[in-house]
C-alpha cells in the first residue's frame, strides 16, 4: 500500500510483497512484445522450456525434462508427462509447437519473432516430445533464445493462432503456468500475482504468496514510495541520485547485481573524420581519431559523476558477468590502467598526421537511454575538448528521428545502448561486428566476420569462449565502437525483504519467486 494515511494501506503481511517499477508492459502476449517491461511480467507467469538457475549462466531445462541436439539441425526437447496449465488445461508438446508456430505466423511488428531466424519448423511427434528443425547447423545460440522473448509457451486453447490475444482474455482464462499466476490486472497500473501451486519447473516454489506490481511514471515517486515504506521493492529504474541517497537510508537495502546493459559510441566508418566517404579519406587517420577518442574517455569519471557508480566502466565488448568477458580496451588505450591519457592521444594523432583539433560531430539521444544521457555526453564532450585535441559539436535528436538517421549515415559518431535479447556473449558480438550488421556503420573485417560465424556453431564451450575473446581483441584494435559503461541491476528493498540478491543475476530476469518478507 502507499497510503501514508495508513488505514487500509500497508497490508503487506508476510504473505504479500509490493514491487514498484517504471517499466511498462506492451502486451502480455509473448508474440506481441520485444521489450523488458513485458518480459518482466511474462517471465513470472509463462513456462519456458529452458532457463538459467539463480546466479548461474548455464542454460538448463526448466519446463523441459531434457533438451539436446539430436542431429546438427534437430534440437529435441522432452517434456515431463501430466503438465497442466493453471486453468486445468493439459500442457503438452502441442502447446509448445503452437507457441512457436503462432509467433512466426503472426510476425507482429512489435514482436520478437525475428529472433527465431534459425527455426525452420517445429514438430510434436508425441505429447511429451518437441523437435525443432533448424536451418543452420549446431546453432549454439538457439537454446539461449528459448530462454528469452519468443521462448514463452502459451496455452493453445486460450490464445489465438493468427492474431494477438488481448490481455484481459489471457487473465480471464488464467492461461498461466509459471511460478505465478495473475489474479487481477489493471494495465500498466497494478498487477496482482498469486503463487502457482501447480508450477513445475527449475525454480524452487515461490516464497511469497501474493505479489503486487505497481507501475510508476516518475522514478522520483517510486523512490519516495520505497523510501517511505509504501512499497517493498523498487526495481527499475531509479536515478543515480536516488540510489545514492537511498544507500544512506537505514530503512532500505540497495541490492546490486551484474547488468547486461552497455553504452557505447559508434563510429560511422564512412562519415567519421577521415572516413571512407569524406574528401580527405584516410583509414589510418580515421583509426587514429577513433583511438584518440578511446584514449581520452575517462570512464571512471563518467561512472562517478554522472551515474554515481550505478554504471561501471566497461573496457570490453562483452560485459562482465558473462562467459568470454575480457577487457582488451584497458591495455590498448589510455594510461593502460583504465584511466585517460591525453599525451598518448596527442602522440597517436600526430603520428598519423592528423591536424588538431579534430572536429567531431557527436550525436546522442536524450530520451531513449534514460535521463542522464545529456549529462553523460556533456561530460564526454568536456573530456574530449579539455585536451584541445577535439572540438566536439554535440547534438541531440528525438529518438525516432535518431533511429532513422543513424542508419542513413547522418551521424559520424553517435551514442547507442544495448540490452541483450538473451544473456550470452554472442548477443554482444554478432549483431554488431558482422559485415551486415545492426549498426550499419560500414565496419568491414572479414576475419572477424568469419570468427563470429565459427563461434556460433562451436560445440565445445571452452573453444567457443576462446573464439569470442579473439574476436574482441581484433575489434578492440579496429574500434568499430568504443564501449564505455556497463549498467548494474539495482533493486531497492525494504529491510525486511530478502531474496533480491538471489535473483539479480546475469539472466537479467527479476524473478519474484525468490523474494520473501519478514
Amino acid at each position, binding site marked *: 500500500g502507499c497510503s501514508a494515511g495508513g488505514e487500509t494501506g500497508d497490508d503487506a503481511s508476510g504473505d504479500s510483497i509490493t514491487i514498484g517499477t517504471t517499466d511498462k508492459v506492451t502486451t502480455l502476449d509473448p508474440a506481441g512484445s520485444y521489450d523488458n517491461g513485458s518480459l518482466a511480467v511474462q517471465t513470472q507467469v509463462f513456462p519456458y522450456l529452458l532457463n538459467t538457475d539463480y546466479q548461474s549462466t548455464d542454460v538448463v531445462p526448466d519446463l523441459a525434462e531434457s533438451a539436446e541436439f539430436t542431429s546438427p539441425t534437430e534440437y529435441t526437447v522432452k517434456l515431463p508427462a501430466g503438465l497442466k496449465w493453471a486453468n486445468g488445461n493439459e500442457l503438452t508438446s502441442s502447446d509448445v509447437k503452437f507457441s512457436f508456430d503462432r509467433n512466426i505466423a503472426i510476425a507482429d511488428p512489435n514482436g520478437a519473432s525475428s529472433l527465431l531466424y534459425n527455426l525452420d519448423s517445429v514438430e510434436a511427434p508425441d505429447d511429451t516430445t518437441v523437435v525443432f528443425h533448424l536451418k543452420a547447423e549446431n546453432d549454439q545460440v538457439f537454446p539461449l533464445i528459448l530462454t528469452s522473448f519468443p521462448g514463452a509457451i502459451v496455452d493453445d486453447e486460450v490464445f489465438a493462432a493468427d492474431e494477438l490475444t488481448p490481455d484481459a482474455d489471457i487473465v480471464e482464462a488464467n492461461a498461466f503456468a509459471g511460478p505465478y499466476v495473475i489474479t487481477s490486472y489493471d494495465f500498466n497500473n497494478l498487477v496482482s500475482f498469486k503463487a502457482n501451486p501447480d508450477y513445475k519447473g527449475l525454480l524452487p516454489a515461490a516464497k511469497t504468496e501474493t505479489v503486487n506490481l505497481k507501475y510508476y511514471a516518475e522514478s522520483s515517486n517510486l523512490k519516495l514510495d520505497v523510501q517511505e515504506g*509504501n512499497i517493498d521493492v523498487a526495481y527499475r529504474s531509479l536515478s543515480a541520485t536516488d540510489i545514492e541517497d537511498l544507500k544512506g537510508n537505514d530503512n532500505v537495502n540497495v541490492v546490486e547485481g551484474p547488468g547486461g546493459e552497455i553504452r557505447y559510441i559508434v563510429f560511422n566508418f564512412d562519415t567519421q573524420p577521415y572516413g571512407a566517404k569524406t574528401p580527405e579519406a584516410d583509414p589510418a587517420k580515421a583509426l587514429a581519431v577513433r583511438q584518440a577518442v578511446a584514449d581520452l574517455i575517462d570512464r571512471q569519471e563518467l561512472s562517478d559523476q554522472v551515474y554515481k557508480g550505478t554504471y561501471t566502466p566497461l573496457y570490453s565488448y562483452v560485459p562482465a558477468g558473462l562467459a568470454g568477458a575480457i577487457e582488451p580496451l584497458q591495455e590498448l588505450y589510455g594510461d593502460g590502467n583504465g584511466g585517460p591519457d591525453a599525451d598518448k592521444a596527442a602522440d597517436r594523432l600526430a603520428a598519423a598526421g592528423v591536424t588538431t583539433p579534430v572536429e567531431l560531430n557527436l550525436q546522442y539521444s536524450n530520451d531513449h537511454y534514460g535521463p542522464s544521457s545529456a549529462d553523460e555526453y556533456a561530460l564526454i564532450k568536456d573530456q574530449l575538448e579539455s585536451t584541445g585535441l577535439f572540438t566536439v559539436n554535440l547534438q541531440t535528436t528525438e529518438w525516432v528521428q535518431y533511429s532513422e538517421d543513424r542508419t542513413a549515415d547522418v551521424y559520424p559518431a553517435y551514442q547507442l545502448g544495448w540490452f541483450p535479447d538473451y544473456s550470452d556473449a554472442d548477443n554482444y558480438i554478432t549483431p554488431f561486428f558482422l559485415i551486415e550488421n545492426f549498426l550499419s556503420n560500414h565496419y568491414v573485417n572479414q576475419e572477424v566476420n568469419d570468427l563470429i560465424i565459427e563461434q556460433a556453431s562451436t560445440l565445445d564451450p571452452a573453444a567457443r569462449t576462446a573464439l569470442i575473446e579473439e574476436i574482441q581483441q581484433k575489434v578492440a584494435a579496429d574500434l568499430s565502437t568504443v564501449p564505455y559503461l556497463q549498467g548494474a541491476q539495482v533493486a531497492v528493498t525494504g529491510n525486511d525483504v530478502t531474496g533480491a540478491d538471489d535473483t539479480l543475476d546475469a539472466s537479467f530476469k527479476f524473478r519474484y519467486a525468490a523474494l520473501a518478507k519478514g
Partner: protein
Amino acid sequence: MTSTTTPAAGAPPRSTRSTKTPGGGLGRYILVRALLIIPTIFILVTLVFVLMRTTGDPITAKLGGQVTADELQERIHAAGYDRPVIVQYLEYLGGIFTGNFGTTLNNRPVTEVLLTYGTATLELVFYSLIVAFLIGIPFGLVAAYFRDKGQDAVLRVFAILCYATPVFFAGLLLKLVFAVWLKVLPVAGRASTGAQIQMELLPNETGLYTIDAIMTGSPAVLGDVLAHAVLPSIALGLLTAGVFLRLVRTNVIGTLSTDYVDAARSRGVSEFRLVRKHAYRPALIPIITVIGLQIALLLGGAVLTETTFEWNGLGFQLSEYLQARDFVAVQGIVALLAVIVALTNFVVDIIAALIDPRVRY
C-alpha cells in the same frame, strides 16, 4: 435631443414582426451547436493524423535500438506504415464511419483506453475545479470588495503566483511538505495498493475511484482515495484558482460600476449586498464562459500534474502515446478531448443562458 446610439435600446418590441418561436429556437440552437462539434473533431483528427505521420512510426520508436535497419523496414512494411498517407487516412476514416476507432499498439481498443483513463482525468479535473472555485471565487469577491487596498494587492499577487509557478514545481513542493515531511498525505497515485485491489474486485467498476470507493462500502477505502486526490487537485486547482480569482475580481469591479448597481445603491441597498447579489451574478456569466476554455487548459495542465502525481489519466497517456507514435491512440484521445471541450462549452453556454435571462435562443 440626443438619441440613443444603440438601435436595440429604443427599438419597439420586435416580436410582432419576427416569427421566432422560443422553444423551437432553443432546440435548433442545441442541434446546430451539437453539429458544429463534428467539423471540429474532423479537423483536429486530420491535423493530428498529418502531424503524427510526419513524426515517424511506432515501430522505429520502439525497436530502433534493437533490430537492424532492414528488419525495421520489413516490420514497418508489415504493419503498413509505409503506404501513402492518404491511403492510411482514408482507411482510418473508413474505420471511424463503421464505428471502429481502432486499437492501440498494445492491442487495446481505443474506446477502452478512453474509458479507463478518461475517468481518471475527469476525476482530477473535477476535484481541481472544486478547489479552483473554493479559492478563486470567494477570494475574487474579497479582492473586488477591497479593491486597491492591501488585501486586494496580496490576493492579486497570490493569484499571479498561482499562475506563475509551474505545476510540476508546485507539485514537488507539496509532495515534499505533506507526504515526506509531515507524512499526512500520500506521495502519489490514485489509491493505495490495498484499496486499489479492493476496488478492482468490484463487479461493476466505474473507473471513477470516488464512486468505486463508495461502492466498496469501506470508509477506509474512501478515505484513502480522497487522501490521494488532495495534493493533485490542489496543484492543478491553484493554477485555475489564480485565473478565476483575477476574473471574478475584474468582472465584479466592472459590474459594480454599472448603472444598475448605482440604481440599486440609490435605493439604499447595502454595499455588501451589492457585491453579493447585484455584481456577483452578472459577473458570473463571463466567468462561466471562461470555464469552458479552462477545461481545455486544465486538460493540458493535467499532463504535468498527472506525471507529477502518478495520476494515470488521459493527459499522461496522451504524452506517452505521442512518444510511442501510437497514431491510433493519439487520434482517439484527441477526438475525445475535442468532444469534451465542445460539450463543456456547449453546457457552459446553456448554464450561462440559465443565469442570464436575456440569452434565449
